[in-house]
């Protein structure tokens, strides 16, 4: 694989082969679809939210090794976080992917392994797909919450 060690590290391939959070929730608090306009991949993401905290994450859909591994890592990283903290971690991950922040393992967990993807602009879209879906889901929940209130 020559120069691709950044993209195809063991940890990434491990998440790709054994996806954490794959599947569906029975009655999710919020669910969203997201597509990667550059390759056509489509994913479905479900969140359970209890008392302002993300309690469960599940996902289905197609994708390349990077997008699938990233989604798996995201599922681990965001579960148990408050909505605000989760959004903050998503934003941090986005900044890392755009090369504007150094990755913080405390916040990103295994997703720290994706730091090297920043060197491959096209694959950044893949890595971000699941995280952008999570942001969308949380914001959708917050908006709808407000509408109800």
């Amino acid at each position, binding site marked *: *694989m*020559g120069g691709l060690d950044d993209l195809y590290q063991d940890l990434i391939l491990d998440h790709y082969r054994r996806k954490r959070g794959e599947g569906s929730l029975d009655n999710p608090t919020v669910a969203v679809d997201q597509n990667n306009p550059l*390759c*056509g991949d489509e994913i479905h993401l479900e969140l359970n939210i209890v008392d302002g905290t993300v309690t469960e994450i599940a996902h289905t859909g197609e994708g390349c090794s990077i997008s699938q591994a990233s989604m798996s890592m995201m599922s681990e990283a965001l579960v148990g976080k408050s909505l605000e903290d989760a959004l903050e971690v998503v934003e941090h991950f986005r900044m890392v992917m755009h090369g504007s922040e150094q990755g913080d393992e405390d916040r990103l967990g295994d997703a720290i392994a994706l730091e090297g993807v920043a060197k491959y602009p096209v694959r950044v879209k*893949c890595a971000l797909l699941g995280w952008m879906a999570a942001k969308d889901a949380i914001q959708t929940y917050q908006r709808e919450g407000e509408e109800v209130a």
Partner: protein
Amino acid sequence: MSTAAAPIDVTALRADFPILSRTVHGAPLVYLDSAATSQKPAAVLDAMDAYYRETNANVHRGVYELAAEATARYEAGRDAVARMVGAPRESVVLTKNASEAINLVAWAWGVRTLKPGDEILVTEMEHHSNIVPWQIVAGITGATVRFAPVTPGGELDMDAFAALLTERTRMVGVVHVSNVLGTINPVAEITRMAHEVGALVLVDGSQSVPHMPVDVPSIGCDFFAFTGHKMLGPTGIGVLVGRTAVLEAMEPFLGGGEMISNVTQQGSTWADLPWKFEAGTPPIAEAIGLGAAADYLMAVGLDAVRAHEVELTAHMLDALGQVEGITVFGPRDPAVRGGAVSFSLPDLHPHDIAQLVDQEGVCVRAGHHCAKPLMRVLGVGATARASTYLYNSAEEIDVFVRALGNARLALK
């Protein structure tokens, strides 16, 4: 066009293309993405560079020598393109790409003509550029876009097409050669059928003109679009060939310099064809480059280009056919299809294929290829696609298929 062109000597011809001697990640470049854009021979680059260094000036109105030279070179570019597709020069409108050529028709004709109840019939194998303009214009006018289905074998379902073609159909948009499946559509027959119900026909020739002899008038269609950068030419230029009578009857699209006869505060009148449809400073250097590309292709011979493609496609289909678990899309007979070959593997996403074979110097495309409706029909989100051109060799295909095997092992 010569009918018995000499076969292509790939080794000799590759020397004309400067980029082909570069390496990628230390490996020789194996460029198998010509369906996305072609590489350019030095003759094309030199023609453009010489224009800028020797006689750059704005065209058509300048009296001075420089402007006369620029105008002559610009219009000679049009002439070469016209010659290549057998069309009269006044029917050859230069645009910025194939997409603009199609939008020109959709907007200039469609916005002024279409009404609720009218239908535009396209196929499920169209490129977005022959779908989205019609959706946009349908949204403005209240017309409807219908899709003629594709068979499991990757061909246009002609029975279903015939059934969808009715008195309501005002325009048929059909791709000549699919950029995903390689399918060659029976565009002359489709035109005949469409004209019987009074519909106009737009053929998207983006993937045919570069790769085979095409005589536009003998197809009989009303509009024929293609793009410069896929036929050895530069970016920034495309072509709309129209039937002269249809273009004459049409109101213009973009307004501005060049396309007028007279302008007053009360209203304006239009220039003669083809300039009526060319607003503003045209892609001058690009037309000169495209003319050089057309001359290059005619010198090689479009028959020879096609024969070489059939040979390479046969080799590609053979070699890919031996890859375990592979799905290859589109017709299997290389004699009835173009050279773009899309495929998928159960265990390796197209993105990973493209990324991993790139490490061995091989460029293939991964994605929806601007044909998302077709992807849905094929039941995939994306495919990988390898596509050849006159500068590719059978050995390059072998390098690619070996790299594909390595990629598979790497992510096992």
